[in-house]
């Protein structure tokens, strides 16, 4: 592989109100390499890509592209494309109701006397596609093709537009193994044509299967650039999570309580096709159970299946020893469950409603439409949780959308505490929240468990989980692969289980 640099980004800084998204990040791409960009949620991968493609403008730093003697400033995705930087996203951004050829040449159709020259277009498409070993007829309608083929067509379009830098943002999330294989052979083919490929993914297997180099980001900072063959999986996981494997500090638990083994929720080969493979699970009274794994490992899918947010199609669920059928979230709520979703903005807050309404809505839904809460009662509930959780809001009637992220999260926590659940599921309750609030939430979780609640806790931060959880389920690639407790509950052990596979030789 020749070591020719096609793209270099130096000292990139980008801040959003309240958050520094990128701090002095460097990134280098050489022609003919597949360069994996890795990092947990919030690490800054997307921001870096967006700076590169002109969606955001960096505050400082320079981007150089081969062939331009001056640093370039990219203002829009269109400009990026003209400079040879193309992006293929996870969601297909082509037009499903046009043919393959039309999609390939959309906006740059070959013309003859002002009219589209269909013959040339189809001929060129055939050449292009066969050159890349994509076997599909150019006159086929795009939505008749499989997702993988659609993705490849998007790539082919980029290639034909003379791209030198191809960004693949989570291209494999919706593909099956065979399709992933096909995509990889296409990527290798492009490598031979000396295209530089930036590959963003959460799947470790795939990184090791196809990439030459890995750049790891964490919290908006560059952790480092590594040759894939020199970086064992375990080390990669450690770098993404922010602990160097060599100097892992053991965190001793101050006190480990003895649990009475009263199961609250028991799952037996519960699962849902395409999202989480069948798993067994027992959540005990007074216990905080963590679910860990990289993003996309199925930790959210697992709890969503228990809660009925996604209906299980497999297995049985018992609550306090009794087999139950959970078809909707309301069923789960009536059985004493509560669920704080991962994506606060999309699934949690009801933005235009007031703090009061957001707090009481779950309890109200549980009571039913014809048993409305008296206004006074609702106000008391709202005030109680505003006070208890120290929610900073102008008043209980303030629309939730005007609160900060941390306070919005507290409102959602208040909403669920008000229903007095026996099993509380918290999916990333501390994401995007300031440190102070984070600690408050962790303390609250421990207190709730002490009072006898069973808590399911998901977080991308292992330290946080170690502080709060007394048992941890580890997931990898949509499957529960292990459960750790007692002496085994260490960063090292967790990372080893997460990394799994034969490369765990750190």
């Amino acid at each position, binding site marked *: 592989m020749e070591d020719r640099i096609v793209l270099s980004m130096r000292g990139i800084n980008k801040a959003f109100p309240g958050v520094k998204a990128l701090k002095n990040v460097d990134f280098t791409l050489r022609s003919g390499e597949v360069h994996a960009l890795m990092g947990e949620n919030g690490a800054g991968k997307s*921001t870096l890509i967006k700076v590169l493609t002109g969606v955001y403008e960096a505050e400082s730093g320079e981007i150089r592209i081969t062939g331009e003697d001056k640093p370039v400033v990219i203002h829009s995705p269109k400009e990026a494309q003209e400079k040879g930087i193309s992006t293929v996203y996870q969601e297909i951004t082509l037009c499903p109701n046009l043919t393959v050829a039309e999609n390939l040449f959309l906006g740059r159709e070959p013309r003859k006397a002002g009219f589209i020259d269909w013959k040339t277009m189809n001929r060129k498409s055939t050449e292009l596609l066969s050159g890349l070993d994509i076997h599909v007829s150019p006159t086929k309608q795009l939505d008749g093709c499989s997702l993988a083929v659609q993705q490849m067509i998007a790539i082919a379009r980029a290639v034909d537009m003379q791209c030198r830098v191809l960004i693949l943002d989570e291209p494999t999330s919706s593909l099956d193994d065979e399709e992933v294989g096909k995509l990889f052979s296409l990527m290798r083919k492009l490598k031979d044509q000396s295209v530089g490929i930036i590959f963003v993914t959460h799947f470790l297997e795939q990184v090791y299967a196809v990439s030459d180099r890995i750049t790891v980001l964490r919290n908006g900072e560059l952790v480092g650039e590594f040759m894939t063959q020199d970086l064992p999986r375990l080390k990669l996981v450690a770098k993404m999570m922010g602990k160097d494997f060599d100097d892992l500090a053991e965190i001793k638990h101050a006190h480990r309580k003895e649990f009475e083994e009263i199961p609250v929720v028991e799952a037996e080969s519960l699962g849902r096709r395409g999202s989480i493979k069948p798993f067994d699970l027992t959540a005990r009274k007074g216990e905080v159970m963590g679910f860990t794994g990289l993003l996309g490992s199925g930790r959210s899918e697992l709890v969503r299946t228990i809660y009925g947010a996604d209906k299980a199609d497999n297995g049985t669920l018992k609550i306090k020893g009794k087999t139950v059928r959970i078809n909707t979230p309301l069923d789960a709520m009536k059985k004493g469950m509560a669920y704080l979703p991962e994506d606060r903005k999309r699934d949690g807050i009801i933005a235009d409603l007031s703090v009061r309404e957001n707090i009481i809505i779950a309890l109200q839904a*549980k009571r039913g439409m014809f048993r409305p809460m008296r206004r006074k009662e609702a106000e008391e509930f709202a005030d109680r949780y505003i006070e208890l959780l120290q929610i900073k809001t102008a008043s209980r009637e303030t629309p939730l959308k005007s609160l900060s992220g941390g306070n919005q999260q507290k409102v959602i926590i208040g909403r669920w505490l008000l229903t007095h659940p026996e099993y509380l599921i918290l999916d990333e309750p501390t994401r995007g929240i300031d440190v102070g609030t984070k600690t408050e939430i962790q303390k609250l979780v421990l207190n709730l468990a002490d009072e006898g609640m069973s808590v399911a806790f998901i977080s991308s931060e292992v330290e946080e989980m170690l502080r709060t959880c007394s048992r941890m389920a580890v997931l990898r690639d949509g499957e529960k692969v292990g459960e750790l407790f007692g002496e085994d509950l260490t960063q090292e052990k967790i990372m080893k289980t997460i990394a799994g596979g034969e490369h765990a030789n750190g």
Partner: protein
Amino acid sequence: MPMADNGKLHLKKITEHHLFLPLVCLAVVLLANVIKTPNFFQVSINNGILYGYVVDVVNRSSELVILAVGMTLVTAASGGQDISVGSVMAVAGAVCCQVLSGGQVSVNSFQNPLPLAVLAALAAAALCGAFNGLLVSKINIPPMVATLILYTAGRGIAQLVTNGQITYVRVEAYKLAGGYLPGCPVPTPVFFAVGIVVLVSIIMKTTTLRLYIESVGINGSASRLVGLNSTRIKFISYVICGLLAGVAGIVASSRIYSADANNIGIYLEMDAILAVALGGNLLGGGKFSLAGSVIGAFTIQALTTTLYAMNVAADQLPVYKAIVVIIIVTLQSPVFRRFITAKLPAGRKPLTPAESEGEMQL
């Protein structure tokens, strides 16, 4: 100057109230009326009945007010509009008259009891609403498309019910709903409108429907996770909307003591949508204000009256209404507001944390 500051604060409070803009619109239209017809607000009593332009506006807007209430709920819950309400009015009118006439073209006495006819008409209207609701909530068809079916088919159904004729019910008791109660100077439709607004307001106050509708309209996904059945809530809102269209249809048919399938409630669906928008309600769903929609309905009726007073022909009315719609929709659009805030840097608000977070998408 604390006094001035205080005054400013007060003014801001008033201008930011959700009914401010709708009331301004109404005031402007009324003002135009007064300029055009100085005796606009004059009310007199002749033969024990109230007369005057204003009385006329209030009377004529009754059906629109009733429709606007239903439209508000549908809009809030599903983020779309029910464009079939005018046709559903015709269906209800046809069913009501047909039951009363027992199938004859014109009758001078009820062939069936009035309550039966009313119940049948309301049931038919509710059924129409349920059909719309099913398409929207269960099958996920966009509201505009789903209700287009009954918008086109509804008048045909009404024709079928009346065998293609205009059925007349020449009975004094039937004219009451669209006319005057004995000894009462206020036109009866006004009571219907007031009754519906009060009834629905009470339902909103005493049940959780308001909270549920708003919640589902704002964030369907989050609503599901807190245990709300968004399908059912949307469905209910369409049934209510259909039912109210039925009430409006009976009133409209009583005014002309007949079932005119081609004319009852014609174009009224558009006015109802406009009333909702004029009332400051977001057509994309979410929080809603019934009072706003009622004000909107009055505004439209007053506008119509103004235009008539200016000798605008009935078939040119839509053009002027369209102009008003454009102005109001522009005023309320985020683009225009951003334009205004950009022009007035002093009035610029910092991004709220929630908004800035949305831009982040780390």
